[in-house]
Every structure is written in C-alpha cells, then in structure tokens.
C-alpha cells in the first residue's frame, strides 16, 4: 500500500471507524512505514489532548420568574464520589476478610463430643456402613463394632 492510500485509512483509524480488511491493511502498513507510524502517533496524541478538555455532562435549566438559570452538571465530582465510595467499600471488605480470617485462625475447631461408654446408634450405624462399603479398609470400624457388640 502506498502512503497516499494510507491517508483515508488513517482518517478511519483516528475516527475509530476502521474494521475488517482495512484494519489489517492499516496495521501492516504502519508496521512497515516509520513515517506513517510517526504521523499516526502524533495525530493520536493530538486527539487525546482534544479529548482531555473537560465539558459538562449536561446542563440543568431552571425557570426563576422570567429568568432562565442555566448551570452545568459535571461528571467529574460524581465520578470522584463514586471512586470514593468504591475505595471505602474495598477498605471495609479488606477489614472484614482480615477479621474473619484472624478469628478462624485463632479459634480451635470444636472437638466432637463422643461418649465412649455409650456410642450412639447413629455412630454404630456409620461403622456398619463403612464396613459394608470397604470391608478390607475398615479395620478400625470392625474393632469398634466388635467392642460394641460385646458390650451389648
């Protein structure tokens, strides 16, 4: 592609309207041609500068008697407030997570309350189940069953 042909593609690219094969051709040319790349970069910078001029989000118009009061409503302070809100939420969430993590770290897990003298039927049933499922790997369960049967 010649640099002259590249002009229209550059306009599309700077206008954010470049797609498909044009985008591919644009990328290929810009990768090869230093002059066009420098030109594109400097024009992109100009656009960024133009975008950096702040404007109001919208304008509020109030009627006071026979006068109209026009005042700008700006996005920036709202955005700042929004960011402040998010930062506060993030801070609160961090503290909460740290508190919960610290609490669970320092709290010992409660030991199961098992009375060896009177194993409940539920526990016995659990042993029977284990034994039925994996007879070769449940020696401990077998022993306990034997103890339990002898006691009964």
């Amino acid at each position, binding site marked *: 592609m010649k640099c002259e042909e590249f*002009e*229209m593609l*550059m*306009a*599309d690219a*700077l*206008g954010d*309207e470049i797609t498909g094969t044009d985008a591919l051709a644009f990328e290929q040319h810009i990768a090869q041609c230093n002059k066009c790349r420098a030109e594109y970069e*400097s*024009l992109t*910078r*100009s*656009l960024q*500068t*133009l*975008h*950096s*001029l*702040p*404007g*109001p989000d*919208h*304008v509020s*118009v109030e009627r006071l008697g026979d006068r109209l009061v*026009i*005042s*700008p409503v*700006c996005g*920036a*302070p709202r*955005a*700042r407030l929004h960011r402040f809100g998010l930062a506060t939420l993030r801070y609160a969430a961090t503290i909460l997570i740290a508190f919960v993590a610290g609490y669970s770290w320092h709290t010992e897990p409660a030991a199961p309350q098992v009375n060896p003298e009177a194993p409940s039927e539920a526990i016995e049933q659990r042993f029977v189940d284990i034994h039925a499922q994996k007879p070769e790997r449940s020696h401990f369960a077998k022993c306990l069953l034997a103890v339990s049967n002898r006691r009964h």
Partner: protein
Amino acid sequence: MTAVGSAASRAFELYINDVYGWAFRFLGHHHDALDVVQDVFLRWNAQCSRALPRQPRGWLRRVTINRVVDVRRKLKPDVNVEGGMEIVTEDSAPGSRLDQETLREDVAAALDQLTEMQRGVLVAKVYDEMTFSQIADELGIGVPTAKTHYLRAIRATRDRLQPRWSAEVEI
C-alpha cells in the same frame, strides 16, 4: 406562540446541552459559555424568522464554534480561575488549571486557523462522536471530504500543540 417562537424554544430545549458543552469546552468559564449560549440562540431566533436551517444541530454547532473563536480572540490571555463556575476535574490543582487554560488557548488558536467546515467536522467527530457518514450527511458533503477535513483539522491542531509537547519533554 408563533411558529418561529415555537421552533426557537424547541431548539433551545433540544440543544442547550450541546451548545453550552461546545462553548464551555473551549472557553472554560461558565459565564463566557453563557454569553455564547445567549448569543447563539438569539441568532437562531433571527435565523428561524428568515428560514429554518435544514440541520439545526449542525447550524448551532457551526455558529457556536465561530462565536467561541471570536470570544477567544477578544479574551485577554489571563488565567482567572476565580471568576465564574468551573468544571472541577480530578486534577484541579492550580497548576493543572493553568495547564488547562493554556491548553484551551492553544486548541482555540488551532480552531481559529481552520476553515468553518474543518472545525465543524472536528467538533462533530471528537466531541459529538458522530460517524463520518452522519457528519457528511449533516454538512451536505461526501464522506471522503469529511475524512479529509478531519485529518487536516487534527494536523492543524497537532502543529499548534507540538511546541507544548516539546516543552513538556524538556522539563
């Protein structure tokens, strides 16, 4: 209300945001922007009594930007951030306000060098986010012409802003 009065008040309701936004962006002061808004809608009223513009928004944009350039020419290059309401941005420290003011001056000076058509295309594309096709339709020109105007306008802005960037690099 007459037909002219009705068209004028409808245009005011529809386009007050746009007109104020264009004016404020390049002037940076609420009261200057209000002066431009008032002047533009007075002209709109006068225009409506003669003939209703085919593209009201395009007409308003063109007149507003021309008026902004006129106001900028008359304004002294002082930095009066105290007067009037201003848009507070994230970095509204005095230094950055000064930067923004000088930036506005540079951009307005760049606009001053452009033709009316180039200004219209640039503002429509950059700030109103219109497509080339919409711009061409609004201004009654071809799409390739709109693109050419756009490129020339950005180049003129770049040429005006380049000394500023060089100074930033030196600092």
